[in-house]
């Protein structure tokens, strides 16, 4: 059985069809890309899977569990985490707090305990901090733990966002244009980082990206959407030579 299964997913914004009949089987450990021109509905698909939007139609299952209709935080708790196209860190909080808060769904102490600070509370909070600091170390951010997230340089903020997503302890990680705004050197680092966390955390990764370098380098399979519909699927080589994809990106041949 696939880890993440999406069937006939469709979504309308009023009369506008944003996503139509999207299907995907994501096997455990895969790294799959999602590409398409601007406004093709890629981020909408992520929003539907993570529960930010409720799909008009269709089914999303993680490991056989239905996800449609759950609150976003419940979906995150079940094992899907994401990053955002434009960085959405909690800017006025420290980097460490940004990571710690993402453990929220793993907290087992009770509400009164968060006020009374009993033994169990102290033990759990200590564990959360330790794990957060370990996680920051993986991303080379332990020195910045006490800085405000909003004060970090752009590249570091991108890394904090990925670290925060990992703090939710996901099985599937959705990356929404992680390389946006990066120079070639930073992109190389990002690729290495994605490969590393994929192995270290046993992740299944689904990535939206415009930089073909990224997609063609690391993805095993690619789906292409345009105007909300899937127009192609296959290996990077197949996609590169698919006339429909070329048409979607470059327009119809003029001659």
């Amino acid at each position, binding site marked *: 059985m696939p880890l993440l299964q999406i069937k006939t997913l469709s979504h309308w914004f009023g009369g506008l069809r944003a996503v139509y009949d999207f299907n995907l089987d994501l096997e455990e450990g895969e790294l799959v890309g999602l590409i398409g021109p601007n406004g093709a509905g890629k981020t909408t698909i992520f929003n539907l899977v993570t529960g930010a939007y409720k799909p008009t139609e269709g089914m999303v299952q993680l490991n056989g569990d239905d996800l449609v209709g759950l*609150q976003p*935080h419940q979906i995150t708790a079940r094992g899907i985490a994401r990053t955002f196209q434009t960085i959405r860190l909690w800017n006025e909080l420290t980097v460490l707090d940004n990571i710690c808060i993402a453990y929220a769904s793993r907290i087992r102490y009770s509400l009164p305990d*968060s*006020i009374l600070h009993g033994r169990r509370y*102290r033990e759990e909070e200590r564990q959360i*901090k330790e794990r957060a600091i370990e996680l920051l170390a993986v991303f080379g951010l332990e020195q910045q733990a006490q800085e405000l997230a909003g004060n970090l340089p752009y590249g570091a903020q991108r890394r904090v966002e990925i670290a925060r997503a990992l703090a939710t302890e996901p099985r599937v990680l959705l990356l929404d244009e992680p390389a946006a705004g990066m120079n070639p050197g930073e992109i190389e680092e990002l690729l290495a980082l994605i490969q590393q966390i994929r192995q270290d955390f046993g992740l299944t990764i689904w990535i939206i990206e415009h930089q073909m370098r990224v997609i063609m380098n690391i993805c095993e399979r690619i789906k292409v959407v345009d105007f909300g519909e899937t127009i192609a699927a296959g290996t990077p080589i197949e996609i590169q030579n698919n006339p429909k994809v070329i048409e979607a990106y470059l327009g119809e041949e003029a001659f």
Partner: protein
Amino acid sequence: MRKLYLPLIVLLLFVVIIGGSWLRIFNEYWQLVLLFMGINIILTVSLNLINGYMGEFSCGHAGFMAVGAYVTGILTVWLFAEDKVFGLPVLPAAWAIPLFPVALIIGAVAASLVGLLIAIPSFRTRGDYLAIVTLAVNYIVKSAIENMEVIGGPRGFVGMKRVMNNMADVLDVPWLLIWTFIGMIVTILIIRNFMSSTFGKGVEAIREDEIAAELMSVNTRRVKVVVFMLSCGLAGLAGGLFAHWPGGYVNPGTFTILKSTEVMVMVYLGGMGSISGSIISAIGFTLLLEVLRPLGVFKWVVIPLLLVVMMLLRPTGILGNRELTDVFPRLRAIFGSEEESYALASD
């Protein structure tokens, strides 16, 4: 050792304030100022949870104060004092001493339940729209009280003086100041502890980016219900204490949008998301009102002017979103929590 400083300071303050009042070193006027200071601290610190930490704009805090004031007041009068409406006391007057805090808690719980009236719309609405909801709740509470003739309607509710006198007859200590002091300390501890927990920090995540908070595993609905109920409940506690002030009466005219504004002013003056800022500004504002008393009505010309100047010079309030321990790190030896000392150790 470090852990002992703070309780010692609190104990010392308690002894000075309560002892001083008991021995009449502070006259009745100063006792009243101290009482209002304590009540204002509770109101300011609790409203800071919504307006400062969560970044919502609640302008109906006086409404929840009114619920607490009336519920607690009616309860103590019904139980412990002879009253025109409720007749003879239900319980012996001496029982008022142990049961007074229970009445306060019931008033706080009632106010926190009314707090649900804004918690539930807050799932779907934010900012200006939620502010209007809070305003509406303030008016609903006030109008409801005005139209209940049983509890005095617009004329107000009296009888709490007899309760306090009965308590003083049994044992002559400044009961109200004692409970206000305890209520103030409990309020500060609740908000401080809650906001230092990972669960509580979800409140700040909601302020910074609610969508990201929800998608990054913060149960935003639960957090909002907790925040509104906690904050409104503490406003109810402040109201319950206020109802027993030496004046001996409460009337709905006290709990208007003006009172809510006063609390908001104290929050913004102290700094949003700063507990120590709220405490400082509540104390300062209460004193300012008293210092300017000779000016009479012109007080309300001078105070807003001071506010305008303050906002121009320091738009983030006295402390901004920092705590006193951030501005003066040495104070951390006294006030620092374990969490902070842990963070320092790991630096």
